[in-house]
């Protein structure tokens, strides 16, 4: 009886925590349909005018396309690099490997604002700042560790003898890579593509420093926040939220389907 009470208390507790985490998201969604310019209670009339305003704003669209370009490029490049790093860690042991791994995994521990400062200074020195490519370059640095972690996790589930078995059967290293390793890692690769894209999609601090005149969407949100405070922030946020959600859920479905396939195989 006591245990059951404990359990329901814990359940309630979890719900409160989830409430804390989700309340700003939900509130922003609600206020995006509120006609008042400044969000306050009680709510004003229902309106989609902020969505219309966003839709008509050429800068927002330009930012959106730019964010998309950046997101797709970053996803491809960082997943490739992440795969390389994960495979290197999986296959080889060499002196200095811990340094190699530290390099591959450290970037997320550096505060974004410092990354931004360092990237802007460095990129402007080599004449690479102020453009969409600057954002791509910086985001790849930050996203590669996520890609590596996801793919490495998948590789650790692989039977280590599988690759050498393929070699013994006469496959070249490239062949084994193509027909054994790559297909096995595919679900992790797909989810890494989606997750790195989602990370890049919401990053504003570094992009704010390096993008110059070519603002991405999150940087645009930041300028809205600093300039004309407007419920358009909520409207953009809600749309981006939906998009990112779709990416995350897709990634999860792919991972889940695969892991359930694996358990049934076992």
């Amino acid at each position: 009886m006591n245990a059951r009470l404990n359990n329901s208390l814990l359940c309630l507790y979890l719900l409160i925590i989830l409430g804390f985490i989700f309340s700003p998201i939900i509130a922003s969604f609600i206020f995006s349909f509120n006609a008042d310019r400044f969000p306050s209670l009680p709510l004003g009339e229902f309106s989609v005018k902020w969505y219309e305003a966003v839709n008509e704003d050429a800068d927002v669209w330009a930012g959106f396309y730019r964010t998309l370009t950046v997101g797709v490029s970053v996803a491809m490049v960082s997943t490739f690099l992440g795969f390389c790093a994960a495979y290197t860690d999986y296959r080889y042991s060499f002196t200095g490997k811990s340094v190699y791994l530290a390099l591959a995994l450290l970037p997320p521990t550096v505060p974004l604002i410092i990354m931004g400062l360092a990237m802007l200074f460095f990129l402007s020195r080599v004449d690479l700042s102020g453009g969409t490519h600057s954002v791509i370059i910086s985001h790849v640095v930050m996203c590669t560790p996520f890609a590596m972690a996801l793919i490495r996790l998948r590789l650790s589930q692989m039977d280590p003898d599988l690759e050498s078995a393929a070699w013994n059967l006469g496959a070249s290293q490239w062949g084994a890579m193509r027909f054994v390793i790559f297909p096995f890692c595919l679900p992790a690769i797909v989810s890494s593509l989606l997750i790195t894209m989602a990370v890049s999609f919401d990053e504003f601090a570094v992009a704010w420093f390096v993008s110059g005149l070519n603002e991405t969407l999150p940087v645009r949100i930041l300028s809205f926040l600093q300039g004309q405070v407007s419920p358009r922030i909520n409207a953009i946020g809600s749309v981006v939220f939906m998009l990112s959600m779709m990416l995350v859920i897709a990634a999860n479905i792919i991972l889940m389907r695969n892991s359930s396939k694996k358990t049934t195989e076992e």
Partner: protein
Amino acid sequence: MGLISNRSIFSAFFSFPPLIYQLAFFVFPLFFLLVLSFWSVKFYRVQPDFTFSNWLYIFEKGYFWKSYGWTFSLAAMTSIIASVIAFPASYYISFKLSENIKRIVLLSLIVPFFTSYLVRIYSWQVFLNDNGIINAALDYIGVGAVAMINTKLGSVIGYLTLSLPLVILLQVFSLSNIDRNLVEAAHNLKCSPLKTIFLVVIPAARVGLVLAALFCFILSFGDFVSPIYLGGATTQTLSILIIDLSKAGQQWPRAAVVAITMIVTLLATTFLALRFAYKGKS
């Protein structure tokens, strides 16, 4: 011969790209930041130099150390608060929930990472304002207004928004890896549930719990959005100082000094935390 070279091409193809990329665009920029801290500014342009004046300037300022103290203690406090708040939830998720529900809860904890952090902070303003949602609710139940926005509490709420989901996820991850037999054994020895948690579960999950707190510290230590938009004048953190220095008068070298101090602090904290986490383990 041909075989060997083919082999090395293969391994080089996979090993070098990440190494070269991270050297060029991660290590190098950070190294440059260190170099920058010895440069000087003339006419709003930075120019190569070798001077310690930026270091002296920053380290001599009382407000720098004050800000450092605040940033550090707020981040440390947040990571303790987050760990404590998260633990019961993580415990419940890992030990009491069925696999399916667990999966849904974990998924919903991932979701916030992919919503705009800026939008979430902006949204918190509506809750925390003097005339905001929370105060309206407090007023309704007859409790007077509480100042929340532009206070340190505001900053901490922002930090928690950023890091709490991550802390729970990491804690769940480490709790799920605990050997169930260990917990069973404790139960069989008539250990009370609370005692089991403190004597068995927490020590067994120590590495994960420390890592979770560490990540929370790292995120809070470097965040600038919460202190600006929720902390107001009460929390001028180091990251705001970096923004101010680089924005006003192009004092990049001084901003670099602050940045490097922050990185060194983070590295030292990470090192100590890891040592503590793996103490007595190999």
